[in-house]
C-alpha cells in the first residue's frame, strides 16, 4: 500500500512562514493517517509578524494558530496525538503548562517538553502530529 503525501496550505497565508521567509519547509504535511505540523513560533495571524511576548502569551498564540491550521485541513486540536514543546528555559515550564491545558481540556495528547535555544528571539516553539 502506498501512503499519500500532501503539503497542507494554511487558509490564512500569514501563517505560512515558509513562504514569507523563504525557508525550505512546509507548514504541515499530511502523510498516511497523520498530519505533521512544523515547529511553530508565535505569529500574529493578521500580519504574519512575530508576536513576541511572555511564555504564556506565545503559547496561547501558537496553539490558537495550530488549531486554525489543523481545522483548515479537516483535523483539529482534539485529534492531536503528540506534541513537542520547545521552550527557552525549563524554569518557565509551569507558565507554558497552565495555558497549554486550556487548549486540551480532555484526554490531552502525549507530550514532550524540553528547554532549547530557539531562533528569532522566540520563547516557545510547538510542533505536533495529529490524525488527518
Amino acid at each position, binding site marked *: 500500500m502506498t501512503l499519500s503525501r500532501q503539503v497542507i496550505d494554511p487558509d490564512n497565508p500569514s501563517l505560512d512562514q515558509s513562504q514569507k521567509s523563504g525557508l525550505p519547509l512546509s507548514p504541515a504535511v499530511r502523510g498516511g493517517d497523520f498530519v505533521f505540523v512544523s515547529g511553530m513560533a508565535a505569529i500574529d495571524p493578521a500580519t504574519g509578524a512575530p508576536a513576541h511576548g511572555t511564555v504564556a502569551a506565545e503559547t496561547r498564540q501558537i496553539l490558537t494558530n495550530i488549531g486554525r491550521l489543523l481545522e483548515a485541513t479537516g483535523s483539529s486540536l482534539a485529534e492531536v496525538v503528540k506534541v513537542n514543546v520547545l521552550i527557552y528555559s525549563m524554569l518557565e515550564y509551569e507558565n507554558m503548562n497552565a495555558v497549554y491545558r486550556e487548549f486540551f481540556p480532555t484526554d490531552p495528547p502525549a507530550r514532550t517538553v524540553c*528547554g532549547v535555544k530557539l531562533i528569532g528571539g522566540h520563547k516557545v516553539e510547538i510542533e505536533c502530529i495529529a*490524525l488527518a
Partner: protein
Amino acid sequence: MPPSHELFAIAACYAFWSLAPTGSLVRPGRQEVAMRAVIPAPVPGLDLGREYGHHQSPAIRAGGLIFCSGMVAINPDTGEREHGTVTSEARRIFENLKLLLESAGSSLDRIVQVHAMIYDRIEYDVLNRVYRQYVPNAPPARTVMSVQIEAGFKVMLDVTAAA
C-alpha cells in the same frame, strides 16, 4: 557524525483495531475504528499528569502507532523522581517504557523511533552503553540531542512504537 545504526529505520506497520476504550476518538463513518485512544498509566507512578500536574497523557494510540510522552526516571510504584547518573536514569526509563508499552500490547522490540535527550553531549557514550542493552537487535531510528530536561534530570526518552 552519528553511528550508522542511528540511520537504521524500521517501517511502521499500519494496523487497525476495533476497540474503542475510554478516551478514544471515533470518526463518523468509521465507527468501528478507534482512531485515537489514551493509553492509561499501567502503574500509578507513570501518570505524570497526576503526580506532577503535567498536562499530558502517558501515551496515545493512533493509526497503528503508540506515541509516548517524554519519559524521565520515575519510580513506577511511588511516583518519586529518581535522579541519578545517565546510566541509572536510562535504565529506569527503559524499565518504565517496557511496562507502558507492554500494557498497551506493544514492547521495546516494537519501538520505531527514539528522541534521546541528554543534559550534556559529553555523556553520549555513556548513554549508548546502557541504551544498546535494551534494544540489542535491529535498534529503532534515533536522534540524540542535548537539551534542558525538566526537574534536573539527565535523560529523557521520547518514543514512538508500533502498536
